Each structure stands twice: as C-alpha cells, then as structure tokens.
C-alpha cells in the first residue's frame, strides 16, 4: 500500500457565530489520509465530521463560519492559504470531489441531468488542456466554450461510467430531469460524477444515510469496487459503525469537535484504546448483550468542557483531563489515540 | 400584556421596524392633536382669496392652496381622515374576513367551498377597480369610500385565515381538544384563533398602508370626501392645475402619504420578522 500522505490536516480550528455566542465546532483537529486509503470519520450528530469535510472542500457556511487556525495540507500545499481562485479551478472538483448526503438536493431541479454532468465535465474533465486552463483565467466563465472534440470524448466517458454504476440506458438517462430518478439511482449518478474527473481524493459525506437499507448495501458495494480499482483515497463520514466497518480501511472517531482516536479498521473494532470508542462500541445493539448507554449528553458547542471534551462523561477522567487536551499517543502501527488514560489492549470486553 | 412588552422590545432592536412604529405614532398623535399643532386651526376651511397660492414661509409653513388655506394645517387635519379611513376599513375587513376564514377552514363543506370561491373572485381583481365601482354606485363621500374599501379588502384576511385554519386543524393539539369534547366554537376561538393571530397582525399593518394608498387614489379620482375636506388624495388632485408654480401644494400631502404608508409597511415587515421567524412562503405576499 502506498504510504504517501495525501491529506494532512493539522490543528484545524473552526468556529461558528451563533445567536448564543461562538460555537467551537472544530478544536485543533488532526487528520491524515494516505494515498489509496479509505478513511472513515465516525461520530454522533454534531461531532463536527461534516464541518471537517466542508472545511476541506472550502465550502463552510458563510458568513457564520470562521477558520481560527491550522493547516489543510493537500499534496503538500495548504489549501487555506493558497490563492483561492486556483484552488477552485485546479483542486475542487478535479483532484478533490464530493459525494453529498442528499442526492436529490444536489441536483438543480430545473436542468436535465445530462446538462449538469456535462457542465462538470466542461470544467473538471481530466482531458482539460493546459491551454484551456490558461484561458479560463482570462475569459469570463459564462463566455467560455466547450471544445467539440473534448466534448465528444468526455461524453463517451460519461456514458461509460454511467454503465458501470448500472444506470440503465445512459443516453436516455442524460435527457431526464433529476426528479425522474429514484434515490438510489441519484446517488449512483453522484458517485459517477465524483469519479469522472479522476480525482485523488473523494469526500463522501454520509452518502448512504438518506437511502433505504437495502439500497445502502448496493451503493456501498459499488463504491468499494470503484475505489479499489483506482487507488483513490476517500474520506467517508458516517454515524453508522456498521457502514464504517464495511468500507473503510482506517477509522477516526470524533467527539464534540475533537478527534479522539484513529486506527486501522480491524484494530479499531477489536482493540479500541479511547474510553469513548469503547463505550460507543459497547452501545451498539448486539444479540447477546444489552445496549449500554453512555451517561450524559453531547455538550452544547457554545459552552464546551475544557481540556478533553469527553471528560464529563468519562469513567476514567482525572484532573489532567479537565485541564489539558491530550496529545496524540501512538499505541500501535497506524493506531493513535488522544487520551490521558487510554484503555489497555485486551482490557475492553 | 407580557407579549406586547416582548414585541415592543424586539421592535426596538429592529431599526427599520422601530422607525415604522415611530412614524405611525406620529400619525396618531398628529391626528389627535391636530388643532393644537396646526397654525390655523379654524382656517382649514377658510376662504382666503388674498392669500391664495403663497409659497412656504413663516406664516404658512407649507404655503397656501387655491382657497388661501394653510396647506400645513390642512395636511394635519387630513391625518384624521386618513386614520379614520384606514382603521375602520381594515377593521371592518378584519371583522368580516377573519370569521369567514375560520368557519370556512374549520368546516370542510360546500359552504366553505362557496365562501372561498366568492373571496377568490374579489381577489381576482385589483382592489381599486372594484372599489371604484362600489364607490361610484354609492356616491362620493368618505363613508362610501370606507365601505367600498371594507367590502373589497376582507378576502385578504379570509384567505390567510382559511389556509392557517386548515393546516392547524390537523395539528395534534386541536385533535385532542376535539376528542376531549370541546365544542367547535370553543376550539375555534380558544385554540385556533390565538395561533392565527400573528399572521393576522402582520397583514393588518400592511393592509393599513395599502388601504391608505387606495383611499388616496380614490380621493384623487374624485370619489372620496368632497371639497373642502382636507383629504390628501383630493388635495393632490386639486393642485394639478396650479403646477409647476405651486409645487408645495402637491408635494406636502403626497409626502405625508409616503411617510404614513412607509411607517405601516416598515412596522408590518418588522412584526413579520418577529412573530414569524421561519417565514412561510404562503403568507409572504405583497399587500
């Protein structure tokens, strides 16, 4: 497996301005994704995983969101400081693509699906020449033309990929409107659109949450196949541990805006080191075990606990937990935890 | 009472709505205190030929009109006409429209259908057009204008209340009230009506502004209170033949209309923002 770091998020701080003050949504978050790796980002609703995904894509809600610090290094460059126009043109939609949670909403209901896909290809196709890129900085977007020959090649690629995501009769499908497709089909279209630019990283934000359970399985399988064939990295956010287990190589768990633990999938489930992870896994329904609740509630992000944000609900918390946010501690190869009192391997039942 | 204080507090923070409130308060004060504020309280109805069409000055603040009367004082007294017209017209529309809407929305029967069809007809045509017909039929007078406006504005309330009542009827708390044996009129008055009051209040404020404009238009066309009543629309109409020299004659009453309507509109917008934070598309209509 390729071990070059594709995405390295360091110390990212994001705050949202709300009526009741500033919500500290992301608190010095670190995350690393390697080339060809499927990284699962799990956590309960409101833990910040969607915000993290949007921060990477550069589409945080304006004007409420403020980046308070940190770096988002993609292929060595900090996306937060590089010229925004070139980030938009060269990175977004081309090297980093997006599969949203809501497949219907992601389409403009008034335009045909084919028009929207080809619009993406016009700007983000792998066949865009350097010369086109150069002219696009000078000519206003509305006036730019789509070269005929590239159009044909792109369209062929689109039909091709629509076939591989099992959309029936791709030519006809392109002429349809978004509401004429089922939820599962729309998500397949989204997947196709995410792969077409031949990206290095796909950000998939809870892509199966809005789908029926039976369809979920299909979509996951499809995604896994396409990813493994092309050595693409994926950041896959979800609140469902089962999904994470199925598709991810590596899992990072977040709580209240702080990442708690990161580990290869098998180790994550077999030997979790963070108390929160342990409790999370224990709370999953299991035939021969009762669901054990984690006492307490997720903190309101305008009034966060100090230090490690899990400490109010943690059974092994101590004074140092209240004072300082733990640094990263390497427990095993690829397995790091941010805890002052990590669980000993084998101690979790 | 507490609700009113709360609303006033919130209004204070919304700058433009507060300005609206101030303007309207000024309007009411002006109307009530007109005799005290005006410089020629009795001369409003005067015939002063030697002083006709004088430009604004120290004696006549806004100049004089074709009868030699002080325009400033006439505008002030005109505020009374404006308020009376607006309040009564909108008030009567409310009293007619809201009950019809409540009943039509609550009882889903052919009567409801008929009522809504009728109000649809009124809504299908611009209010001015019908108001002209009614006012002309009845004869030019202030009362008839008010009547014409009342008879043409009630459907706006009805449609609003009807839609709200229908959707509220499906709410659990209404169903449980009925299941507990509450009589229909009690459900309507004590459960549905309070919940419909916010959109009604908003529409009332905006309706006042709209009614004032329509009333002024009718006055301009000659259908309102006859001369020498200081009705703003009529004053503007009279001024036309003396333009461009006597510009104050047209400018003053028109500007008064502007301030007043602006006040009601700003207040209405502010109230809408406060009372209905998740702005529902259906009730966000013009007028």
């Amino acid at each position, binding site marked *: 497996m390729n071990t070059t770091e594709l995405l390295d998020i360091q110390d990212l701080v994001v705050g949202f301005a709300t009526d009741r003050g500033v919500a500290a949504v992301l608190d010095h978050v670190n995350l690393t994704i390697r080339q060809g790796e499927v990284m699962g980002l799990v956590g309960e609703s409101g833990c910040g995983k969607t915000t993290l995904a949007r921060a990477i894509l550069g589409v945080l809600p304006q004007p409420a969101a403020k980046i308070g610090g940190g770096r988002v290094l993609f292929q060595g460059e900090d996306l937060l400081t590089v010229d925004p126009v070139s980030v*938009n043109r060269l990175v977004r939609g081309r090297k980093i693509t997006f599969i949203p949670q809501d497949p219907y909403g992601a389409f403009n*209901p008034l335009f045909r699906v084919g028009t929207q896909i080809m619009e993406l290809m016009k700007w983000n196709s792998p066949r865009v020449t350097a010369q086109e890129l150069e002219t696009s900085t000078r000519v206003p977007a509305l006036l730019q033309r789509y070269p005929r020959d590239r159009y044909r090649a792109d369209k062929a690629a689109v039909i091709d990929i629509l076939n591989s995501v099992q959309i029936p009769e791709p030519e006809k499908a392109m002429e349809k409107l978004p509401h004429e497709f089922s939820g599962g089909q729309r998500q397949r279209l989204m997947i196709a659109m995410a792969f077409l630019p031949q990206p290095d990283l796909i950000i998939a934000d809870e892509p199966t949450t809005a789908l029926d359970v039976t369809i979920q399985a299909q979509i996951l399988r499809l995604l896994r196949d396409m990813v493994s064939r092309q050595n693409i990295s994926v950041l896959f956010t979800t609140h469902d541990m089962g999904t994470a287990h199925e598709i991810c190589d590596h899992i990072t768990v977040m709580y209240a805006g702080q990442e708690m633990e990161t580990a290869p999938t098998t180790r994550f489930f077999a030997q979790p080191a963070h108390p929160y992870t342990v409790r999370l896994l224990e709370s999953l329904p299991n035939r021969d075990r009762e669901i054990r609740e984690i006492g307490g509630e997720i903190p309101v992000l305008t009034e966060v606990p100090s230090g490690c944000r899990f400490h109010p609900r943690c059974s092994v918390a101590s004074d140092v937990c209240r004072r300082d946010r733990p640094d990263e501690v390497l427990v095993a190869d690829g397995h790091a935890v941010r805890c002052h009192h990590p669980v000993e391997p084998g101690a979790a039942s | 009472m507490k609700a009113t204080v709360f609303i006033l507090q919130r209004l204070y923070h919304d700058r433009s709505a507060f300005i609206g409130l101030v303007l309207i308060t000024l309007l009411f004060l002006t109307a009530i205190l007109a005799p005290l504020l005006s410089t020629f309280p009795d001369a409003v109805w005067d015939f002063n030929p030697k002083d006709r069409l004088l430009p604004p000055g120290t004696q006549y603040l806004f100049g004089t009109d074709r009868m030699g009367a002080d325009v400033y004082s006439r505008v002030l007294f005109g505020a009374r006409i404006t308020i009376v017209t607006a309040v009564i017209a909108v008030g009567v529309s409310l009293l007619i429209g809201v009950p019809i809407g409540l009943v039509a929305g609550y009882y889903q029967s052919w009567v409801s259908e008929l009522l809504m069809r009728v109000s649809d007809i009124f809504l299908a*045509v611009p209010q001015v*057009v019908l108001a002209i017909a009614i006012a002309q039929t*009845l004869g030019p007078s202030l009362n008839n204008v008010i009547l014409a406006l009342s008879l043409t504005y009630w459907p706006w309330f009805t449609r609003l209340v009807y839609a709200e009542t229908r959707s509220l009827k499906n709410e659990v708390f209404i169903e449980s009230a009925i299941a507990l044996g509450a009589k229909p009129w009690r459900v309507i008055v004590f459960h549905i009506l309070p919940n419909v009051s916010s959109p009604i209040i908003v529409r009332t404020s905006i309706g006042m502004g709209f009614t004032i404009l329509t009333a002024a238009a009718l006055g301009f066309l000659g259908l309102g209170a006859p001369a020498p009543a200081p009705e703003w629309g009529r004053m503007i109409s009279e001024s*036309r033949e003396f*333009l461009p020299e006597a510009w104050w004659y047209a400018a003053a009453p028109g500007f008064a209309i502007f301030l007043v309507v602006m006040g009601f509109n700003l207040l209405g917008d502010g109230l809408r923002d406060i009372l209905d934070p998740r702005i529902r598309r259906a009730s966000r*209509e013009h007028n």
Partner: protein
Amino acid sequence: MPTVVGLITIVFLISHIIPADPVALIAGETATPEQVEELRTQLGYDKPLLVQLGRYFVDLLQGNFGTSLFTTRPIIDDLSSRLPATIELTFMAMLLSIVVGIPFGVLSALYRNALFDHVLRIITVSGLAIASFWLGIMLQLLFAMRLGWTPLQGRFDGFPPEGITGFLLADALASGDFDAFGTAFSHLVLPTLTLAFPALATVVRFTRAGVLDVLQSNFVLYERAMGLPASLIVWKYILRNAMVSTVTQIGLLFGILLAGAVVVETVFDWPGIGNYAFNSIAFSDYNAIMGFTVWAGVIFILVNLIVDIVHAMIDPREIRG
C-alpha cells in the same frame, strides 16, 4: 372561467342591487322623473331580478355594455379602441420591472447587507409607499415642467403613424418612421417609470428573497464544492431558479400595474382605459364605469390564466412530475 361568471355577478349586484335606484344613476343627474321611468321600462329594470341577471349576461356576452353618456358611443367601442394604449403602457412597465428588477434582486441577495443592498432596500420600501399618482405628478414637475426633458402628457404629438397593431412603438418601427418612434418613446418614458415603480420594487424584493433561498440549497453547495466558477453558478443556474419563481409573481405584478394604470393614465392624460374610467367617474357615466370594471376584471383573470399556463411550461417539474 367560473371566476369570470362570479365577477360579472358581483358587478351586477353592485350596479343593480346596491343603489337605491339604478336607473336614476344610469340616466344621470339631469334626467327628469318621467325620463327615468321611461328608461326603466326600456332597459327592463322593472322585470324580476333573475330575469335582469340573465339579460345582463346575455348583453355582456353579445358585447352590449350600453352606451357612454359622454362619448355617446357604445361603451364596448370606447373600451376596445382605448385598450391598446393601456396594454402598451402596461407592457413597457412590466418589461422595465422585470429587466431591471431581476438582476438588481440577484445582486442584492449576493451582496446581502452591503451598502448596495441597504440602499436598494430603502428604495424598494419607498417604492411600495409612494402613491403612484403623486409620483407621476412629481416626475412631471421635475422632468417635464422644470427641466423640459420629456413631454408633459399624452401619448403623441401630431398624427400618429399608420398602423395595425395600435401599439405606436411597433407601428412606427414597422413603417420605418423613426421620428414617430422617438416621439412615441419620449411620451412613454415618464408614465412607464411611474407605473413601473411599485412593480419594480416588488420584483426586486421577491427576486432577492428567492435568490437567498436558492443560495441555501444543496445544489449550490454541490456546485461550489465541485469547483464551478461562482459567476456561472449565479448567472446560469441560480438566476434560472429565481426567475421561475418570479414568473409566478407576474400575475401579482400585473395586478399592481393595472391598479396603478387608472391613476397614472389620468395624471399623464394617457388615452387608455384607465383614463376612460376617470372621465367616466367625472361625468358620472355609470354604465361606462361598470363596463370598465367588467373589462378590467376579465383582462386580469385572463392574464393570470396565461401566466399559469406559462409557468407550467417552464417549470419542468410541473409537466413531468
């Protein structure tokens, strides 16, 4: 269609039931009691109400609106000859409102809370608070009387161009008479501005709200995340969505314009049906006013019908959904 029936019924009620003596109204103030009685039998007002209602409908359907007191022509002729002038004015005002209003609404939404937005909001709120007739008079005062930039009133000077459409601008262009075009245009300027002002304000407000709404939607997020240029997202996609919702407002706009037409035509002495209504009021020409009411109502209902059809056509969700 049933709305039209209802409207006619209501006008009937207004004209026949409300007044103490409808025939006296029709006869006018100068008629003697004998003349009134004669008119009563002649017009059939002595028959039972339902019969009268029936005859009313029949008359209207045949185009018999009665005769005007002050033009002494059949009312329907008066109305139809004046209709093109009103349509031309209303159309130009509508055009102005939409062509200027939509882009400004979009910009206002994009630069929300910036100076531009605030200034525009002040203008639009004012636009809905200014009495149309007053605005018209003020504009006349400034531009026609004091500055002399535009003609004071009327639709044309001298002999209008020959034409079939009755729309002076179109006719002038068709016959290649550019002088006539210029004259017609200069006469259109002030009335159009006056009439359009409240409609423009409404368009800007609605477009702004619509765009703000669309900006929150997921497809905008998606397009941004996938690196599409911002100007493209706004002017090709968001604009389209905003326009579709604006089209539904055209019916409302037309209502504003039609209501305003009555006073604006009066102020500018524009020879349309609004002016006709004003003159009829001045002359207490009762039948003419009723005729105008029915006409205006029917036209308005028709326009709304057309708008509904057009909306169904451009919103693809409607046809296939």
